[in-house]
């Protein structure tokens, strides 16, 4: 049985190379995050600032991979809708706008939820230092803009591919 499962798994990996790469990449990054967290908890020798940088980069990559997966899934799910809209006269620009906006929305919501939590957490953290900077609104706006930019760059390839496709391709897909 184990051999069958292994064969099926390898077969699936070969068929869906892109998804396999994303999944394996995501897993690898996730494991790296877990190891780094472990090191941090054990009070390892890495400098604290450097470790935070690393954790941030890992978090951004994880989020990016998640969004890339979400973009593939959403585009796949909305293929027919996009075909219908194009048949109704939607242009490439209309479809691109529609998809990019639908991907931007969750990022904007996530930011709205994250702001008060981050504000609170950073306040507590900064109070641990006798001399510290003050939090400014622009820091949050810049981070939101960066998040949005990363998100849009991540989903752009999917969006452009779908927007440029002939409508009949999408409509034949049922």
């Amino acid at each position, binding site marked *: 049985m184990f051999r069958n499962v292994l064969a099926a798994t390898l077969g699936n990996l070969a068929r869906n190379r892109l998804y396999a790469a994303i999944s394996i990449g995501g897993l690898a990054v996730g494991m790296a995050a877990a190891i780094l967290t472990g090191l941090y908890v054990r009070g390892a020798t890495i400098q604290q600032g450097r470790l935070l940088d690393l954790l941030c980069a890992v978090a951004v990559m994880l989020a990016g991979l998640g969004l890339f997966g979400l973009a593939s899934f959403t585009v796949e799910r909305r293929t027919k809708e996009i*075909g219908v809209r194009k048949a*109704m006269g939607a242009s490439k620009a209309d479809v691109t706008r529609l998809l990019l906006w639908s991907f931007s929305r969750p990022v904007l919501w996530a930011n709205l939820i994250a702001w008060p939590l981050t504000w609170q957490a950073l306040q507590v953290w900064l109070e641990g230092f006798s001399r510290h900077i003050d939090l400014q609104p622009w820091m949050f706006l810049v981070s939101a803009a960066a998040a949005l930019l990363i998100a849009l760059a991540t989903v752009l390839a999917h969006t452009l591919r779908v927007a440029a496709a002939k409508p*009949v391709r999408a409509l034949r897909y049922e």
Partner: protein
Amino acid sequence: MLKLTDIAKSYRTTEVETRALDGVSLEIGAGEFVAIMGPSGCGKSTLLNILGLIDTPTEGSFLFLNEEIASHSEDKLTKLRRAHIGFVFQSFNLIDDLTVAENVEVALIYRGVAARERKQRVAEALDHVGIAHRAKHRPQQLSGGQQQRVAVARALVSRPKLILADEPTGNLDTANGEAVMGLLQGAVDAGATVVMVTHSLAHAAEARRTIKLLDGRVVSETLLAA
């Protein structure tokens, strides 16, 4: 209005080339009601997709409103489609996430109709197909017949010159099929050109002309006495 000369369409996969249309020539005048018939896989839908500018022929000339479109870019085709064509599909193809009214409105949004006029025209169109009381429902909450009436409303609301219907009654019972045929006939009476793919002899008989396809070729044309 539409003039096809020696239109061919081939699909190529890595090994096989399938010829869906093979030298189709036909002319469809403004205000005509034309039925296209033929067995499954004979190229009916491909022909309809080409007429609707959602697919392009691989060979031949296609004059759409006296404009040769064979060499048009996707953007130009989009503009023509937006301005002149309405679609009705066999599987309705309504957008599940939108309400009935929003589905009908989609056709007007891309034509740049102002919001106020959109609301009014959507209401009129839904009223026309007898589904105004369902305006706020989602497509899944409607029966097949009701969904197809919404799809017809969506096709009619932009007042297109050309309405293309791909087996519009294929998934409907007799009564709903008749209702949809009545709506299409109404559009013809109002001046639109309707081209409909159908398997139903009875529905084809309601058209003024029937074109029969076999293996990607036109094998016969029957003109119904007015």
